[in-house]
Structure formats: C-alpha cells, structure tokens
C-alpha cells in the first residue's frame, strides 16, 4: 500500500516533465500549477510524515489548496472549450451554476461527515472536496455531450484534462457513496481504488499531452495564397452572391 500510495507522485512528476516539454503552462496555467503543486504537496507530506501535528496541518492546508485549484482549472477547461462558442449572455452563468449545483449536492451530504470530523474548517474542506468532484464530473459530462452533439474534436488538451478529472471524480464519488453505506471495513479498498483511479487519471493526462496539439510551421507568418488561389476564391464568392 505504501508503494502504491507514491505511484501517483511519480506519475505526476512525469506529467510535469511532459507539460514543460509541450509548453502547456502558457495554454493551461492552472493545470500546470495544479500538477506542480501536486508534486510539491506530496513531497511536503512525505517529509513531515513522522511528526503527526505538523502532518495534520500540512495535510489539511494542501487539501484546501487542492479544492481551490480544482475549481480554477475546471473553469480554465470550460473557458477554453466554450469561450468563443456560444454568444448568449446566459452562457456565462453555466459554470457558476455547475459550481452552485456541486456545492448544493455536497451540503446535502454534509450530515454524514459532520459527526466524524472534528472542526468546522476540516468539514468545509471535505465539503469543498466533494463539491469539486461533482463539478469535475459535470464539466466532463457537458464536454463529452459537446463531442457527441457538435462533433467537436475530442483529442484536445482541454478534453484530456476533463477526461482525467472526470474519470477520477466518478470513481471517487462512486466509492465514497457506496462505501459510506458499508462502514470502515472497506477503508482499504476505498483508499486503493482512489489511488489506482488517480494514477489512471494521470496516465490519461500524460497520454493526451504526449502528442503536440497543433503542428505549426516555425515561420513567423502564414504563407500568402497564390494568385491562382485568390482568383478561384473571388470566383467562388462571385458565384455565391
């Protein structure tokens, strides 16, 4: 289990290398920050694991940062895909509505966790974490629907990020919902399934980012159309109007 628990960290380190190679920090700054933070947070937790008091604070502070980054990068993905797609005013309300739905669903589950957690800040962090999982799954479902409805290209970085989070969040919600009914006997299985699914999510990200998104020529500007091409273009326009 100890070896298994450090697998995502190693994979995350590989992902950071791939992201740097692809210069993804320009395109997806929040996702890049998340990946770097994940490595740093794991190393920080590992370094203070022998001191329970420090580990306690390190764990909960990093969890809170994960919550904030989770929402920020889902917004980044959402904007990347839908930014120039829909021009109606209410399109701007879709993401806040998703976040509101995630928080509402998380709050309805709060009664199950409130007795087990000591303080209010920790309860807020756990509720935030569940809300972020809901947001991740909802954004993933919406993006996949767009692939189906609009015929959008699925092999895009934005879809890769959403797929990784969507897969992990679906498994996380499924295991949390199921195992909360069975009690602490399934704690090992719950922990193992989360680690395995997170590792699969990181592998999905590595796979998506392993291919350059758009192969651009290295020249400074686009080549100009030839005179024949321009003539044919004018002819085509003439026929249309």
């Amino acid at each position: 289990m100890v070896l298994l628990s450090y697998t995502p960290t190693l994979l995350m380190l590989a992902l950071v290398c791939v992201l740097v190679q692809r210069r993804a920090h320009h395109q997806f700054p929040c996702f890049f920050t998340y990946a770097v933070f994940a490595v740093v947070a794991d190393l920080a937790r590992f370094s203070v694991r022998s001191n329970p008091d420090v580990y306690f604070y390190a764990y909960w502070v990093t969890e809170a940062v994960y919550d904030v980054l989770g929402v920020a990068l889902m917004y980044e993905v959402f904007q990347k895909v839908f930014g120039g797609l829909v021009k109606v005013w209410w399109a701007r309300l879709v993401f806040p509505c998703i976040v509101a739905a995630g928080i509402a669903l998380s709050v309805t589950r709060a009664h199950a966790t409130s007795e087990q957690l000591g303080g209010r800040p920790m309860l807020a962090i756990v509720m935030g974490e569940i809300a972020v999982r809901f947001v991740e799954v909802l954004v993933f479902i919406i993006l996949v629907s767009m692939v189906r409805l609009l015929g959008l290209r699925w092999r895009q970085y934005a879809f890769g990020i959403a797929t990784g989070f969507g897969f992990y969040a679906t498994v996380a919600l499924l295991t949390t919902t199921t195992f909360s009914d069975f009690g602490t006997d399934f704690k090992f299985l719950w922990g193992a399934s989360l680690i395995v699914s997170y590792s699969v999510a990181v592998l999905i990200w590595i796979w998506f980012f392993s291919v350059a998104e758009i192969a651009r020529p290295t020249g400074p500007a686009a080549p100009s159309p030839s005179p024949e091409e321009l003539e044919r273009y004018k002819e085509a326009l003439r026929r249309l109007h």
Partner: protein
Amino acid sequence: MISVFVTWLIIACGALACVYMLWGAWSRFPRRDFDDVVHFLYPVDLSLAEALLDPAAEFDISWKLAPQEFREAQRKRMSLYVELVRRMAHNSKVLVEFSNAEIIREDLLRSDRARTLQQTAIEVRIYALLTLLKLRVWMWVSKTPTMPHLRKAAHVDGLKTYDALKTAAEAAFLHLPPTDLETLTRNL
C-alpha cells in the same frame, strides 16, 4: 432523497461518458476527409427558408385563411422548416468533423480556413439544434407559433450564418477541382 437520486444520476452519466471516451479512443473516432464531405451534404434551399420566415407572407396567409385552416397551413410550414433545419444540422456536423482533421494540418493557411469553417459550422449547428428542439416542442403541444421568431436562436441568425457557412466552405475547399467545388456549392 432527491440528492441521492441526483448523485447516482451524475455518477451514472460520468461512467457513461468515460465509456464513450474509451470507445472513441479505441475506435479512433474515424476522421472525415474531402471524399467524405461533398457527397454527404444535403442541399438547403435558403430562399425557401427565407420565404417560410417572412412575416409579411405569414400575415398574408393568416389574413386569407380561417383560423382552423391557418393552423393546418402553419403546421405544414413548420414541418417543411424542420426538414430544412435538419439538413442544416447535418451539413454543419459534417463540416465540423471535416475541419477537425484540417485544423491540425501543418499548412497554416488551410488550418486557418478550417478554423473559420468550424467556428461558423458550430454556430449553425447550435442554431439548428435549438430551433429543432423548439419546433418539436411546438408541434408536440400543437401550438401555432409565428415562424419569423425562428430566425434567431442563441443570438445566432440561422439563415445569415448558414450563408456565411457556404462562403467559409468554399474557402476551405478552394483547392478542389472546379467541378467538385460546383457540387459542393450545389449540395450546401
């Protein structure tokens, strides 16, 4: 109780979305190239669509016919517009799928044309899907709406955008032989 149902619904949809993406990656979502475009398009008569959405023509029909007859005529006009919008939706999806492959080309000019084509095709598809939904609901509840209201959906002027789509498609297929370009124009 509702939150439990919604939670399970979201989990089920999430699982289905995972399966869909896995299936897509496995089957590699077949790409559309030039050969899979021109002959897969259905012609859309924009002048007919203009006539169906013309408020003056609609007022004229409502003036000349009895209410029952007008309802019947309006239903037929709606069915005709459904067919036109269905074709728009199909054509735009074909062009979006085609431009998916073109956008990632190294040829910057072709890639930029494909991007313009895709953007316009997506707008047409959004218009077509929303209008189809609206029309189906109206036909289902037997409502007699005013057709000119269908010109815009989600701030997209359907007919104007479809016209722009034709121009963008012509630009994207510029390197085709003139006969194929002619067929494309006819089929759009």
